[in-house]
């Protein structure tokens, strides 16, 4: 072996050559992994054959034969296991989406209160975060479900809430709105208002860039988006009627039913994740140095615009990545539904379907694949975000 200058390199034994070593290590590792996988698969085939459990995905189209307490798409006991999967997945997505919205709102409020100069307020917010973060989520869910919601009055002694809602230990029953035909006009007015508000926003921005004059964008937008459809709604004579829940002998009929399992899960998840989001928000706002605020003041910006134009955009860069992480955690934590019997993906699919079919490998693999897809897609989007908004330093 000769290098560029034609000199001979010292010969090393392959045992000490890093390239040889790493090649050998990697080959051995791959062989071990392949052997483990082979052993696992052949064992599984043996065990399944002995227990006479079918394998493959044929069960997907066979009749499920069990009922699910909350379904967003039509589902009966005659539906297939595949249908049950979609029902469970939609229930998971529903509770996660609502949980994310509530947790974000509560979390931002608490996080900002933690930064308040009012000692009482900041200590209270910090106390909330400390208590919630140091208790297991499962304990909190069981508490909300068993000690609070199940302790509500029973069917006979249902509480009626003004406005026609009924509350008992079987859930919350709300009046169900039945929209009239004229509702389409109101919807159209809403769409029109939205488009007009966006157009006004763009126009006001251009004007401000040209003339320096500021326009009341927020007020006009609110008027266009909210007041316009409301006016149309009132002008058409309120084209909506309500189907009120009726007290039956054994059950409540009609109306929108909110299961106590759903309420407990949503409540517990939102409050738990809000504590973590509050910490994320606090850290994000604190990461913006005070010099930025001072510089904004010396440019003549008032506190409101300083926060909106200077502090929040910089804090968001720090907040967003861990925030999405919390959203993912919330979605993953929604699997605790199985403990209180909310029919989410894990409860329906890994619970009931697994018990009925016995096809552990297929069912667990499908469930994991769903969560893995959600995680990978989200972290891919996050990667794009952080590339787009990364701090450009010279």
């Amino acid at each position, binding site marked *: 072996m000769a290098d560029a200058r034609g000199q001979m390199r010292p010969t090393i034994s392959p045992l000490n050559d890093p390239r040889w070593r*790493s090649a050998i*290590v*990697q080959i051995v*590792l*791959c062989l071990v*992994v392949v052997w483990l996988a082979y*052993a*696992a698969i052949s*064992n*599984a085939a*043996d*065990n*399944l054959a*002995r227990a006479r459990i079918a394998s493959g995905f044929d069960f997907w189209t066979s009749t499920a034969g069990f009922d699910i307490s909350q379904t967003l798409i039509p589902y009966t006991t005659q539906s297939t296991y595949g249908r049950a999967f979609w029902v469970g997945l939609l229930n998971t997505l529903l509770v996660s989406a609502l949980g994310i919205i509530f947790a974000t709102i509560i979390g931002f409020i608490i996080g900002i209160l933690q930064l*308040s*100069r*009012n*000692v*009482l*307020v900041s200590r*209270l917010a910090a106390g909330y975060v*400390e*208590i919630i*973060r*140091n*208790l*297991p*989520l*499962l*304990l909190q869910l*069981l*508490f909300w479900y*068993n*000690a609070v919601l199940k*302790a509500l009055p029973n069917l006979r002694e249902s509480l009626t809430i003004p406005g026609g809602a009924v509350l008992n230990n079987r859930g919350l029953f709300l009046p169900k709105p039945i929209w009239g035909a004229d509702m389409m006009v109101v919807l159209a007015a809403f769409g029109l208002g939205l488009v007009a508000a966006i157009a006004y926003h763009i126009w006001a921005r251009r004007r401000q860039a040209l003339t320096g004059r500021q326009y009341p964008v927020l007020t006009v937008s609110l008027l266009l988006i909210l007041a316009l459809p409301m006016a149309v709604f009132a002008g058409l004579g309120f084209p909506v009627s309500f189907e009120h829940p009726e007290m039956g002998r054994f059950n409540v009929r009609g109306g929108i039913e909110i299961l106590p399992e759903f309420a407990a899960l949503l409540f517990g998840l939102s409050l738990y994740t809000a504590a973590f989001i509050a910490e994320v928000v606090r850290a994000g706002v604190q990461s913006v140095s005070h010099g930025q605020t001072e510089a904004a003041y010396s440019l003549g910006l008032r506190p409101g615009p300083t926060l909106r134009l200077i502090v929040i955009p910089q804090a968001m860069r720090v907040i967003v990545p861990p925030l999405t992480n919390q959203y993912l955690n919330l979605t*993953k*934590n929604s*699997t*605790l539904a*199985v*403990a209180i019997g909310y029919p989410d993906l*894990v409860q329906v699919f*890994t619970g009931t379907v*697994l018990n009925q079919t016995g096809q*552990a*490998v297929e069912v*667990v693999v499908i*469930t*994991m694949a769903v*969560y*893995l897809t959600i*995680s*990978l897609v989200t972290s891919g989007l996050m990667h794009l975000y952080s590339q787009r908004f990364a701090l450009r330093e010279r």
Partner: protein
Amino acid sequence: MASANSSFVRTEAIPAMPPPRSESGWLGWLRGNLLSSPINIALTLASLWLLYLVVPPLVSFLLLDAIWTGQNRDACLATADRPHVGACWPFVWERINFFVYGFYPANQRWRVDLFFVALGIGVVWLLSRHIPYKKLGAIYFFIVMPIISMILLVGFPPLGLRYVETALWGGVLVTVVVSAVGIVFSLPLGIILALGRRSKMPAVRLLSLIFIEFVRGVPLITVLFMASVMLPLFVPESWSPDKLLRALIGVALFAAAYMAEVVRAGLQGVPRGQYEGAEALGLGYWKMMGLIILPQALRITIPNIVNSNIALFKDTTLVFIVGIFDFLRTIEVARIDPKWATPVTSTTGYAFAAIFYFTCCWMMSRYARGVERRLVTRHRRGR
């Protein structure tokens, strides 16, 4: 020019006047902190109202209205002369052995106590700053103590310790065993995975990456389901591991993936010069990692390691779902016992569990924060 001996020039300084009463002392503090603006006044009032809503009912439930003695549910029922009943503590006292040991045979419970002591010694040895011989401590915690605990808890007939099957274990014992196994196995595994993920060998890097991202992408419950229903299929029938062992494997793998990311962050925090310095001294990979890089990386990640252990400790409650009798499960079982069936039993059980979990997690997080503060100040002084 007026000189020092002019009669109209003071020769001594005027003593400083006290600050105005409204600006100092508790009154000034009150004005500055709580009542500085109309919004602040409103916030203060709202906070006081919130405290009024939460604190008095909590105190009266846990202490003032609580029942402290009794034999069965009759003691904790509301009567005409006692309309408000608080926590039913005799329920907890009577079941305390169940909450701590589960169904572990009563005459063998000293073995569990001994295990708690052995674990406590290991934890204090490793975490306290004042105890020397940390290397011995690490050997004790990661090798000696697990073996002793295994012999103590499972049993070892040649030494006269009779065999106790894991189905009888329960309560705090199981919670502690699951978290201890998670911690003892996750740290070494996590270090290996973190090193693997930063390795120069593509196959090693890819395998570590797949494992870490896969485990972190799925919920713990599905990992536990995998361990409890799929694992028995993947091993020969004769080996079929018992239920607790399966859950322990699931928890250890799950914790290892999270620990790997924590350690990786620590490794990234070690400056490149340290690697280059070690290489310049002619150290090989393992010597460089073991003697130079890991000691620094692990020291700066102690707070994060403790934080991830807090998360693990809270997550151990999930083994409940695959049918293991952990502390929370014993509460769930005890609270529906007809002997103590009252409207307050559930809440009492949950309050007891909350106090237990909060105390443990809070102490750990205090420790982590203390270490963090110490590391920051040491860093500052060094510069």
